[in-house]
């Protein structure tokens, strides 16, 4: 399978998905996948052509039939008893139907593909709206430009990093084959040196961070802290030297042992994570998007406080009950709140008045029945709505 095919199939084992179909050495038009793609396009085009020509009085029965069959699939899957044995075999009263339902030949994949297409529609819609605004220099065109730039930067780095990760996995697979043969060469030696350095750096950072935590807690004096840092530096140098010696020894003997293979694996991963696309992806996703996202949502705390102060007023008995219940639950979510009544011993009568006991009681004996009642009502509603949709009575589906 070529690189593009791998990207589409996401390395699925042959035969498990359409794009993972086995390729032959023949020219493109002789390949089975080529004719499958062409056939699918032709079939879909003909199908859509005829569907668009269907008289309007036949459209409703077609839609209702398709909706009914799709819905009935899930009902049948749910109701027909079946059991999968440890061997993978499905046991059901009607084996063919049971196997077919449990094997999921199409339903799950089709639904995933349709849901994925919605994402593509979303991207196209964003592009149309904001590119149009940018071209016509309408109000806030600048923000539209920033949005499009951000979107395409994210898409570029996302895809490039995905492809780079796939290449890394191919290299790792090659290393695994070399490790099973025990054949050492300069390529694996280079990766092992990088891996040795990366492992030593991780160890050094762990020691330094641990020392800093202990120093901050007062478990280490300043001189002890500095001694730990110096020791970590020295260990770092010696670990790199030891790794290099191990690699040199393996290179001279021509034997790729498990220790050097482990170093090489680390090196392959480290090299990929230091690549331009991986760093770019980290920058736009982890260092920008995540931080901006978190900062935006942290503003909610201010709005909640302001709204609670102005709007949470006791104007009735119900509001009073609601407020006291909320206060108890709020207090039970923080150790400082729990500390207010921690002096009352659990298991005794006064222990029933601990904040955590009252909170647990409210959640178990007041909240749970209420939520169950709401869920029961919702389920009945879903059932009625489901029946209406399946039988084509719901106007939103057919009109």
């Amino acid at each position: 399978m070529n690189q593009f095919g791998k990207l589409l199939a996401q390395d699925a084992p042959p035969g498990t998905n359409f794009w993972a179909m086995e390729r032959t050495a023949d020219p493109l038009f002789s390949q089975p996948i080529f004719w499958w793609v062409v056939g699918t396009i032709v079939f879909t085009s003909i199908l859509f052509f005829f569907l668009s020509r269907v008289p309007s009085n036949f459209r409703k029965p077609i839609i209702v039939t398709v909706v009914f069959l799709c819905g009935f699939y899930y009902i049948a899957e749910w109701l027909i008893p079946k059991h999968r044995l440890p061997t993978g075999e499905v046991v059901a009263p009607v084996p063919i139907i049971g196997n077919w339902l449990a094997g999921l030949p199409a339903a799950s994949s089709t639904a995933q593909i349709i849901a994925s297409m919605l994402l593509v529609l979303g991207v196209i819609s964003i592009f149309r709206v904001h590119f149009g605004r940018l071209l016509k220099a309408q109000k806030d065109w600048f923000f539209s430009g920033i949005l499009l730039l951000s979107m395409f930067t994210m898409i570029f780095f996302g895809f490039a990093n995905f492809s780079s990760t796939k290449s890394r996995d191919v290299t790792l697979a090659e290393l695994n084959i070399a490790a099973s043969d025990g054949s050492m060469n300069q390529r694996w030696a280079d990766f092992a040196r990088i891996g040795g350095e990366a492992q030593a750096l991780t160890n050094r950072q762990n020691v330094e961070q641990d020392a800093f935590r202990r120093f901050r807690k007062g478990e280490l004096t300043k001189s002890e802290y500095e001694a730990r840092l110096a020791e970590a530096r020295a260990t770092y140098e010696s670990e790199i030297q030891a790794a290099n010696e191990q690699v040199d020894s393996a290179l001279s003997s021509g034997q790729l042992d498990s220790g050097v293979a482990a170093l090489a694996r680390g090196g392959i991963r480290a090299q990929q994570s230091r690549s331009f696309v991986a760093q770019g992806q980290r920058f736009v996703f982890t260092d920008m998007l995540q931080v901006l996202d978190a900062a935006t949502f942290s503003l909610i705390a201010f709005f909640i406080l302001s709204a609670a102060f102005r709007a949470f007023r006791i104007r009735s008995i119900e509001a009073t009950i609601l407020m006291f219940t909320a206060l108890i639950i709020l207090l039970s979510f923080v150790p400082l709140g729990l500390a207010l009544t921690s002096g009352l011993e659990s298991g005794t009568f006064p222990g029933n008045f601990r904040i955590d006991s009252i909170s647990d009681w409210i959640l178990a004996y007041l909240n749970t029945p209420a939520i169950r009642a709401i869920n029961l009502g919702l389920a009945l509603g879903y059932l009625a709505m489901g029946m209406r949709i399946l039988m084509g009575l719901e106007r939103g589906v057919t009109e």
Partner: protein
Amino acid sequence: MKVWQALLNLDRRILYLILMLLVGWQIVAPIDADNVVSAKTQDLFASIDAMKEGDVVVVQSDWTNSTRGESRSQFQALMRHLMRKRVKIILTSIDPQAIEVARVNLEEVAKEPGNNNYELNRDYVIGGYFPDAYNYVFGMVNNIRKELAAKGVLGTPVMENINDLSDCKAVILVTASASINVWYQRMRSKTDLALFCTAVMSAENIPYYASGQLVGLAIGAKGAFDYETLLEEKYGSQDGMINIAAGKRYMGPLAFALMLLIVAVVFGNIAMVMVRKGGSSS
């Protein structure tokens, strides 16, 4: 009367300033308070602690930065526990951003001392993003291998003995949405179900813990701190392990923010009553 009236008309920026000062104080110099670990988190910890080396769990991570304060520390505490137990992980998500957030956090935790240098495809696999939640769960419950076939993970040691969902020891969700509802509907008792959720989701999920459908439940930042406390009790500081982390760090600022909220609500109501009394007497 003027004092109460002034309190009712308090400029919101003064409230913001007080909140900033309190949270800032707790970030710089947090007050330590003893924790009372909830029974729900204890059950969750115990069920994961009972797993053996080589067991496999499905972890569905559906949180992003909108709930980072709660979900991140929950996810990291869970990863620490699974990695120390050498439990293999199948990581999935129904949120396109969440899977990347989870991967970054998993790799961060894997580098910590004592977490057995977890490696992709050897100790964990990334099942990736599934756009349609219902059909994803449907596929996982009916035919897990087929559902994950296109993700390039079937040939890994993690998936070696997994032919059905019942071969996994548990499905664990770290979520900030109602994504667990489909699991409640479609799970069919094939394996254990556990949940790390945000505080606002607790009310709707506690009934499932009460019915035994959830083997354990960690709620909000307090749930993360509970889990960290249990990790600390079990592992202490052996091998430089990190047990107490963001879960505890968030407790101080959260506690003071909530206390301020409570005080604001109480004083807002007192001021309203006093102003009304003053108005009717005059």
